[in-house]
């Protein structure tokens, strides 16, 4: 029932708005955000990523290999440096596990630690779990628009279990890729900004290969993820995302 109603409504909207130029080419906002949030995963993907984390006290460079399937499953494993080689994270639906080869143990991340840093970066475990639900947990409105980009405001739905008080996306109309995402806390303070750059076309997709996460209360800190290799729509089955696979060492 509901989808039909929404469909009808969308058709009416499209018909109505077709009189306005520019608007016509814009997809539904939550659909657009879903595309933005899943730009790296697609139906399935395999990638090699380098991650640089800079804080006031140290700087580290990691090389990782990652696999993803849909929005609910992914596996990522550290290839370098040698000290942490084999450390891996598995996400299946709302659960996150880490594998620690040094002690040969798998650890489930408890709900209370979901806000903690993932692999020492400025990305939290929650980002891994909840980012894929943003289009379901938030309501979106168009704030601004010019010839090249849309500015979209996301506000949490009343009962949604969200982390952020407000999110503002700047999405390029060309290829529908994000340029910047601002995250606000409950007090409406801008706490984090993600910038996207190095836009490349891979197969039939165009994605920004470089993602820079800036925790704004610590101006000297940042995490940069740079995709070295990215392959979409590969042959991966859901049983690949298992604890046994998590523990496999290369």
């Amino acid at each position, binding site marked *: 029932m509901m989808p039909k109603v929404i469909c009808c409504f969308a058709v009416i909207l499209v018909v109505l708005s077709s009189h306005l130029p520019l608007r016509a080419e814009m997809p539904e906002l939550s659909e657009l955000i879903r595309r933005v949030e899943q730009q790296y995963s697609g139906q399935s993907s395999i990638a090699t990523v380098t991650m640089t984390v800079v804080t006031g*006290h140290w700087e*580290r460079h990691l090389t990782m290999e990652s696999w993803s399937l849909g929005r609910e499953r992914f596996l990522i494993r550290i290839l370098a440096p040698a000290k*942490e080689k084999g450390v891996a994270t598995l996400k299946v639906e709302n659960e996150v596990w880490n594998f*620690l080869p040094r002690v040969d143990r798998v650890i*489930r991340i408890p709900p209370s*630690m979901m806000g903690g840093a993932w692999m*020492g970066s400025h990305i939290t475990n929650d980002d891994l779990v909840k980012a894929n639900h943003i289009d379901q947990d938030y309501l979106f409105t168009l704030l601004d628009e010019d010839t090249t980009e849309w500015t979209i405001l996301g506000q949490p739905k009343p009962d949604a279990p969200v982390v952020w008080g407000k999110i503002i996306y700047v999405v390029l109309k060309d290829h529908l890729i994000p340029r910047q995402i601002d995250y606000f806390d409950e007090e409406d303070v801008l706490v984090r900004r993600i910038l996207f750059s190095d836009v490349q076309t891979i197969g039939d997709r165009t994605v920004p290969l470089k993602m820079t996460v800036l925790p704004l209360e610590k101006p000297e800190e940042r995490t940069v993820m740079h995709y070295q290799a990215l392959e979409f729509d590969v042959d991966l089955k859901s049983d690949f995302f298992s604890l046994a696979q998590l523990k496999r060492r290369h």
Partner: protein
Amino acid sequence: MLYRLALRNIWRNRRRTLLTLSAMIVSSALLILCLGVFSGMLRDLLATATEQYYGHLVISARGYQDDRDLFRYFSDRESLSFLSHTDVILGTSPRLRNFGLLSHRQDSAPAEVLGILPEREKKVTGLQDALVAGTYLSANDHDGVVLGSGLARRLGVAPGAQLVFVTQAADGSIGNDLLTVRGVFRTGDAGHDNSLALVPLIWLQNILTLPGQLHEIAVRTNQPLNAAVLAERFRKRLPDSLEILDWGQMLPEMREVVASYDVSRMIIVTILYIATGLGILNTFFMSVMERTREFGVLKALGMKPGQIRWMVFLETLFMGCLALVCGVVVGVALSLYMARFGIDLSGTLTPITYAGGTILPRLYAVIEPANIIIPAACLLFVSLLAGFFPARRAARMQPIDAIRED
């Protein structure tokens, strides 16, 4: 001559003397016991806060205690040797602290992990006496852990079980290693029971890639209530990068509790002093009053008023001193008994955690010199006062009136 007369007077009427003496002995002994029990309750409250975790004084890098930032560490080679040359210090414990994830099979829990040297930590905190299972860390343990009962329950572990600790090391890498549970403690303070774990210092230094580094040195002194003064004394000798805090600065709520406790104790103690003082005053006053006739005779025989006053003063002084010696002996004996055995009230009361400390359900006394000297001095003063007024009255009277008085 007056001396001998005074002594002879004391022994002349034994019943009167014994009555007066026993009144004073009993009241001073009970007063000393009472003050000891009050101090015991305060000591319990303070001890559960400081002697189970914080220590009385803590030396750390400037600002560390505000946010417990991993990177505010200092070297264990800092010149802090002056600490060991002071007799007020009972123990010092170097520590390194980290917040990370403890995990056992499917269960994980965030924990505060404190790296310690077991033999030195024992001299500062008393967690080894709060064990409910297993043993404390031994001096040469290299991968043991002693954790709070709530944490052990959440992880489903008992002594012998293996835990994984994961955290972010100081170089940004993922620090992780195995630990073996040696013991489980229960302090009654839910905060510590649910999150604290003690591990060997060297082990934590390795995990965090901070060899030879410390976050704090906890200090135990023999004058916990005087910690602020001691902190001031040591402050001058610390290197500039370090600071020393007393428990009052770390636990401001506790300082307020102690202050309000002191006020209520002072009110009760004042009432006690007045009650016992009046009792003694009454006995001494009456025993001198009833001798008005005798003083009249002495005066008629040619004794000067000053000599009478002096004689009565000597009498009350002798008796007061004798009574206080006995009273103090009995009071200290009772306090010692209460300090040693105490009275357990856990059947009727449950422990109350309050401002970081816990009021334990027991009556227990501590012996402090002030709790003996002050009541003794006060009661002696009261007894001298009690003798002085009737003596002065008698000394001033005409001999003939005094002799005639009934």
